């Protein structure tokens, strides 16, 4: 017998048809492999299979698919996509269901404010756009960017622009490019958010708006290539810009420069080090080796964590969780930092500002455990440029 509070669900043709039109959900046969692979499922926080199921129903007054618990806990790490035997892009289904939540104005509190910040301030921190270039303090000469003829833009991103820790990574990348005599342009305070958070939260309209405005700015400076500091910007710009602009992550470009002998790393041996593959660089785009080669060229001895490469455990920052102080993120980061320590490494290296922030804030991090550093900073030390 259904429990007293189990309201009858009615198959909603309109919702189902829209779901099938905009995602691959029609291929889903509810096997539950996605839930089995999801790092949040065994913490009881998210049941993807169930979400997809609920996505086809409405009960007349609400849409359980868009208000289901766990929908907003998803970090969009895409580990579920590895498990699906039918090739469904499960993350896309999550985004679609979130979109419905926005239409009904049924979203967790705090997210509307975040979106307004993106829209009005061009960054999720509600910090003034005029302060976006604050990260450049101390940069001189070619490291401060050039304008004549450079067709590669160094796209800093909001976190590396405003967060003091991540700013160090941005400076390291700028100085490394300058050391390699690789000219690049900066967009200054004309740089807008790449829109990764609105996109992850299902607010496609804002993502498209930001992408269009970014495309215009890039066009106005004649850019044909963008190199990003963050893998999230890498992913969002790849998705949002036309194919005319090549988008690469800094690890890919620096790897090319080191291989071509334009950057010489020596003199710094960080010892035993483990590398965490950021979800948006590794699993989602298959970029595993360039960051590792950079670390090796810096003299590091790499040791792998059990969950490595495409099975890397998400740091908990994606999917909008960076700004929600959610429990979800906290526990994932704690676990990953412990896993790093258990390899015996003294340094946990990664190539994403979200990961650096999440790991640095983990309860299991702290003095005497592992040092959390971005790959660019390690390379900078080996090449002999300050960060």
């Amino acid at each position: 017998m259904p429990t007293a509070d189990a309201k009858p669900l009615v198959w909603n043709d309109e919702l189902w048809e829209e779901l099938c039109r905009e995602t691959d959900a029609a291929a889903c046969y509810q096997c539950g492999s996605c839930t089995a692979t999801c790092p949040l499922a065994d913490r009881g926080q998210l049941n993807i299979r169930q979400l997809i199921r609920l996505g086809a129903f409405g009960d007349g007054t609400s849409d359980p698919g868009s208000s289901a618990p766990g929908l907003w806990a998803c970090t969009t790490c895409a580990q579920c996509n590895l498990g699906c035997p039918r090739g469904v892009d499960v993350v896309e289904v999550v985004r679609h269901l979130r979109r419905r939540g926005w239409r009904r104005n049924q979203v967790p509190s705090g997210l509307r404010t975040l979106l307004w910040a993106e829209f009005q301030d061009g960054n999720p921190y509600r910090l003034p756009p005029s302060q976006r270039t604050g990260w450049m303090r101390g940069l001189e000469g070619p490291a401060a960017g050039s304008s004549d003829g450079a067709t590669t833009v160094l796209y800093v991103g909001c976190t590396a622009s405003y967060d003091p820790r991540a700013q160090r990574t941005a400076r390291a990348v700028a100085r490394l490019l300058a050391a390699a005599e690789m000219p690049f342009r900066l967009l200054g305070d004309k740089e807008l958010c790449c829109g990764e958070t609105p996109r992850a939260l299902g607010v496609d309209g804002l993502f498209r708006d930001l992408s269009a405005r970014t495309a215009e700015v890039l066009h106005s400076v004649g850019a044909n290539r963008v190199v990003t500091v963050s893998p999230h910007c890498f992913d969002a710009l790849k998705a949002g810009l036309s194919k005319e602009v090549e988008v690469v992550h800094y690890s890919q470009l620096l790897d090319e420069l080191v291989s071509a002998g334009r950057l010489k790393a020596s003199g710094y041996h960080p010892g035993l080090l483990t590398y965490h593959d950021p979800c948006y660089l590794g699993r989602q785009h298959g970029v595993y080796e360039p960051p590792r080669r950079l670390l090796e060229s810096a003299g590091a001895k790499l040791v792998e964590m059990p969950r490595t490469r495409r099975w890397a455990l998400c740091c908990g920052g994606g999917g909008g969780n960076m700004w929600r102080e959610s429990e979800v993120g906290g526990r994932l980061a704690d676990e990953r930092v412990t896993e790093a320590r258990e390899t015996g490494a003294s340094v946990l290296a990664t190539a994403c500002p979200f990961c650096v922030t999440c790991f640095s804030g983990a309860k299991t991090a702290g003095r005497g455990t592992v040092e959390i550093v971005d790959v660019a900073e390690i390379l900078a030390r080996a090449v002999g440029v300050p960060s």
Partner: protein
Amino acid sequence: MRSVVCLKVVPRPEEVRVNLESKTLERAGVRSVINPADLNALETALALRERHGGRVTVLSMGPPSFEPYLRVALAVGADEAVLLSDRAFGGADTLATSYTLAQGVRALGGADLVLCGEESSDGGTSQVPQGLAEWLGCSQATYVDELQVPTPGILRARRILEDGTETIEVPLPAVVSVVGGANEVRFIDYDRWAMAQQAAVRVIDSVALNADPASLGLKGSPTVVAGLREVRKPGRRREVLTLEPEEAAARLVEELHRLGVTPT
């Protein structure tokens, strides 16, 4: 329920530069936003419309460059956008501004409820809503965070005062000022975006407003900015140290002791 929400577009405070000689604001290249408290007022109006039906009109007084911001309000959910725009409105202080807006409300055929943000972030006086109410000759409720219409014709408003909250009832029509942060403002509905960009924003000039020219703009403003001065900030020691927690704490204990605030 016919509601009118007054919106003001304000320059980003950290970007504003003042020209000391001409005593004016440097507007070139300064980014603007919709006054945050006005968005809270808009959210209040939209929530009321959900419960009681009716129409929500956004009204603003300003130059044509305000139009895109009114379109944002349409995309959020307002039904109609109206801009009072005329050189004659320029240079207005609170008296002239509230007069002009009141004429605007009249030009729209009146309203049951007029909502404003409590004050604007560009050094607002927080007096426009009260002034509007007086010009329109109707009730007012200021510093409100919640509104209800318990019976037709009566507005119940919860006011946030310094040391408590007061709930009052006033007869409609009324002018309400909504406190900043009163609610979480719903975000833009992108399904409305295209419509919002194409919608006709009704522009009303001073002639169509049927206003008394002597009450408009600079002419209608009894207060005048007579001068500008730089603020003399007290000289600060500016001793900045980078210390580990133990040393930092020791240094702070020293200083706090010297200042006489440590526990005895």
